[in-house]
């Protein structure tokens, strides 16, 4: 199986805090890798390193996309996006003044670098629109297409954020706490969406998540982080019964 992403011995210290302390993992093509852990375990720092928001102090990240192995350590997000690695954010990071459909159009146009033309963005670019409507349908926001993003609910904005990432046609999708702050029904929507992105769209996905149930439902492999290190790694069923993990979570969740 092709390993689309490989990370070796990633380290990031903030002063004396070892946020990420020697983490290695691989992401297989077409699989979902879940990263869990209590607050302050270093999950978000790890995702920030992978998505190019911060540079690791040491360690390497390689991507295997289109049959080439490339060292992508420290690449900034736009460059990663062009290569095929896109991220959705914990706090929805969308274009608040634009309608839902225009948000998606903007991402498609940006990816295609099709912006120096005098055709209208609002219906004048047929292939862009075709793609935009299909993404909205996939995500389930078709009904809301005309609403400005600022009028969406929190959950809908998170969906739109994922739609923006999808519009970049990534090989690898990084999801940062996709269900944080959502209701139970909305969580189910996200779980379903992640499964479909894997099965129907063939994405390779890393999901950082607080909610263990969500991770166990969608992941092929789970990494449990604690104090910057990997505490356990393996199939969800194995992780569920791992005594170290149980004590970590039973201890935390009382």
């Amino acid at each position, binding site marked *: 199986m092709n390993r689309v992403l490989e990370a070796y011995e990633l380290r990031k210290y903030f002063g004396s805090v070892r946020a990420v302390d020697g983490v290695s993992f691989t992401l297989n093509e077409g699989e979902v890798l879940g990263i869990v852990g209590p607050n302050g375990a270093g999950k978000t720092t790890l995702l920030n390193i992978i998505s190019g928001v911060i540079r690791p102090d040491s360690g390497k990240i390689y991507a295997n996309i289109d049959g080439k192995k490339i060292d992508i350590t420290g690449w900034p997000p736009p460059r990663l996006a062009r290569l095929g690695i896109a991220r959705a954010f914990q706090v929805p*990071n*969308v274009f*608040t*003044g634009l309608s839902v459909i225009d948000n998606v159009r*903007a991402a498609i146009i940006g990816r*295609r670098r099709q912006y120096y033309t005098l*055709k*209208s963005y609002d219906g004048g*670019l047929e292939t862009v629109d075709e793609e935009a409507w299909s993404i909205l349908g996939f995500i389930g926001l078709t009904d809301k297409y*005309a609403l400005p993003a600022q009028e969406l609910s929190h959950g809908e904005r998170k969906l739109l954020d994922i739609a923006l990432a999808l519009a970049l046609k990534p090989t690898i999708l990084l999801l940062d706490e996709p269900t944080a702050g959502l209701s139970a029904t909305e969580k189910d929507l996200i779980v379903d969406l992640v499964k479909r992105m894997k099965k129907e769209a063939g994405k390779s996905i890393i999901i950082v998540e607080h909610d263990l149930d969500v991770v166990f439902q969608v992941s092929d492999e789970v990494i449990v982080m604690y104090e910057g290190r990997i505490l356990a790694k393996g199939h969800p069923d194995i992780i569920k019964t791992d005594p170290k993990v149980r004590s970590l979570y039973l201890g935390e969740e009382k």
Partner: protein
Amino acid sequence: MQRRIRVSTWIIDLYSVIGVIALLSVLPLFISSYYTRLVAVGILYGIAATGFNILFGYTGLLSFGHAMFWGLGGYIIAIGLIKLGLSFPLSVLLSLTILVLVALGAGYISLRHTEIYFAMLTLALSQLAYAIMLKWRSLTGGDEGLYGIPRPLGTITHYYYLILLVSLITLIVVWLVLRSPIGLAFQTIRDNPGRAETIGYNVRRLRLLSFLISGIVTGIAGIMYVPLEGAITPEALYWTFSAEIVFMALLGGTRAFLGPFIGGIVYVFIRDYAMDITEYWLFVMGVILAILVYILPDGVVGTIYARIARLQRLKR
């Protein structure tokens, strides 16, 4: 599929432009030449504010120095016409060429920053331009400015139609740009520059492009204004005029395409009304503008649009 037959708001904007220009084109038949001149000034203020709003309303950058483009456009055409003795078209060309260079230079410098620092840089640059126009007496006439600038086409009414034509073309071009993917890119930068960069936009280059178009459009208004008045003074570049441009744009509404254009016309009429009723017209105007800030925060056109949108929602 029902969703695809929805009328684009951009089409409504185009119809509004055509409607307003059509209205303005029959206006001189019914009003005195005093009011024709007044409307002409309003149209040009409106174009200046439209230019400003490309940068502010669509790209999210508050320029506090747009008087620079207005004033430089005006000075250079005046210099071309009376100092260099060039024809009107050549003077316009000269003015446009220099405006492009100035806009690129000023944009390159001021776009090193955003938000308040960008506003301060544009303010400083325009005050610098003001100082130069004030002190370069041999070319600009110093604080007395330049007088006796000839008006092409003779009468006010004829020149009014030239202004209207230029404004129509300018508005259509701006409309074309803003409804193209470039305009969408501008808006993504306004809302969220970081994400815009991530999804593939070259934010710095697009901001410079926006600055350039914005400056040229405001400059075109300044170019057309000077032959209308026959004179220009350094006040045209002073910072208070930059603030007035901001005011016109917000008065009309920065989220509506035609808002700033209407704002410019309304602004001129408020000023004329105030001047008419009292010698203390600045006071009256200050009061009116302050009241408008409270009762019409979305601007005249913005408020109308919001009303229409609400009505449509009620119908559904």
